[in-house]
């Protein structure tokens, strides 16, 4: 479960302010956050992942307050317990698809290689990218690259998956297929899934949908 309470954040040298009073995503639930580009969805995901640290407030995953963990511990927690799907995929061009998916293993989860690799290969088969396992990302289409990013996020069996526009570059058929795969996986493995999107066609698949402007109370107060 993801619990966000009373967090405040601002970038240095910027007028942008963010304040979230309360946001909950239960385990096994899929929550969508919608809003126009630049409204702060990615910042919110970075705060919940522990990539950014809020100035105040609490971010907790399965009751572990990552916002109060030392940086190294928060990073280690993210590696093992949080799956991330980035807007720009962020695949490493000199690694094969397989090695990109297994990046968490190479970066610190070496002792869990066997179960992670088994899960990763199953996911690759289900998302249709298994034939590209040994290819480099440059040989893949946008949609295929995105599926690689999704496999990477799910292969570590995380408690929380944060996805930033995960279906942005997929065709309509694949969009729904991939989203359903993510949601089914979250429900099946009791993962909390938070998706930032502006793809309104798919919102019916989520358990909850939040308008980001409504979540960010600071902006409301200022406006």
């Amino acid at each position: 479960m993801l619990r966000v309470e009373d967090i405040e954040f601002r970038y240095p040298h910027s007028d942008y302010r963010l304040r979230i009073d309360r946001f909950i995503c239960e385990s096994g639930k899929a929550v969508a956050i919608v809003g126009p580009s630049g409204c702060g969805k990615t910042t919110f995901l970075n705060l919940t992942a522990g990539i950014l640290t809020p100035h105040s407030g609490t971010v907790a995953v399965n009751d572990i307050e990552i916002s109060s963990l030392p940086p190294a511990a928060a990073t280690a927690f993210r590696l093992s317990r949080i799956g991330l799907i980035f807007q720009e995929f962020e695949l490493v061009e000199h690694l094969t698809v397989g090695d990109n998916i297994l990046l968490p293993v190479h970066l610190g989860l070496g002792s869990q290689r066997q179960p992670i690799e088994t899960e990763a290969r199953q996911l690759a088969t289900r998302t249709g990218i298994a034939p590209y396992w040994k290819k480099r990302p440059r040989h893949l289409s946008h949609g295929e690259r995105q599926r690689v990013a999704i496999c990477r996020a799910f292969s570590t069996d995380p408690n929380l998956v944060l996805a930033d526009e995960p279906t942005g570059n997929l065709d309509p058929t694949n969009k729904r297929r991939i989203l359903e795969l993510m949601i089914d996986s979250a429900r099946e493995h009791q993962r909390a899934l938070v998706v930032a999107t502006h793809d309104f066609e798919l919102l019916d698949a989520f358990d909850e949908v939040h308008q980001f402007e409504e979540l960010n109370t600071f902006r409301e107060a200022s406006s």
Partner: protein
Amino acid sequence: MNPAGIAFLSWKHLSHRPWRSLLLVLAIALTFSFPSALRVFIEESENVLRERARSTPLLVGPRGSSIDLTLNSLYFTPQELPPLPHSAYQNLTRGGFGTAIPLHARFEAQESPVIGTSLAYFDLRELTISDGRMLTRLGDCVIGARVAAEKGLTPGDKITSSPENVFDLAGVYPLRMRIAGILAPNHTADDDAIFVDLKTAWIIEGLAHGHQDLANPAAANAVRSRENNLIRANASVMEFNEVTEENIASFHFHGDAGGYPLSAAILIPSSDKHRALALATYQGEEATEQIVIPLDAVGDLSETLFATQKLALMAFRILGVSALGLAMLVFMLSFRLRDGEMRTYSKIGATRLTILSLKASEVAIVVVSAILLATLAVALTRSVAADLLARLLT
């Protein structure tokens, strides 16, 4: 942190840009190995030079540079000094100081030095025949192991001496020599040389020759005039460019044998007393030849080498620092270009220590590979130093 994973990711990046990585490894290896290799080469060269000098008790040769005389006699470097007349060698022999071994190192055959000497030289250098047999007659040669290997020569083959000057039509004629045997390798300049009897060297010099018998009716066309027992030949007389069993008797010398040239003579004194006498005889102001203790000459050469080495090492240190600086710059630029990749690792969950280890491991792989390569290069230098020195000097 997963050290195996870190090493794997570093290796993947290095192998993704193999030429850049190889260039870095080579540049660093060269920086590490060159000063050590130079030091090893000079140390080994000094040892090899001293060893050969130690087995050559004394040298008698024309006056001039003692180092030139030593290098010419020990390593058959091109002769820079005037010739030593044969009469001087005869005087040395008659002096009764010990065993004198003549050396004639002036000519080449297929770029290998042709050394005219006596059989005593082979005993001095402990040279043995590995294939074929020793010199038995005029026109025979025995060749060093490397000459045989590189030119693919075997006993029974022929090798022709090279004229000193292709336009010197009236001068030295090439002599086709019969290879009697191949010497066992001894990893000195002897491996690169072709040994002939001193008289064979003089044939190459043009001091002796063989031609068709003018008294024979078959040579009538070559006779210009006959007066009593004196037969004068014209230019059509056929000269032999090879000594065979059939024509060996026709070879004869012209001129004063005392003036025939040698390069030097090795003197093996019978005793310390004879050594002292020989040194005293040739060290006087009036002596027309010089006597050299090769070990002393090599010592002088070593001092020069040592001074050169110091200068070279100083230059290499400056170059080395520049090369290492450039290598560091390449790494820094590479890491800067990979900022995005590192940020991705960090976002996924790599700690600062992991990122730092990733960078350090990449540098370590390159540096360790370079050190291994440098160690190999230094070991290789040590093993080939003797052969390389012989090759450089001849």
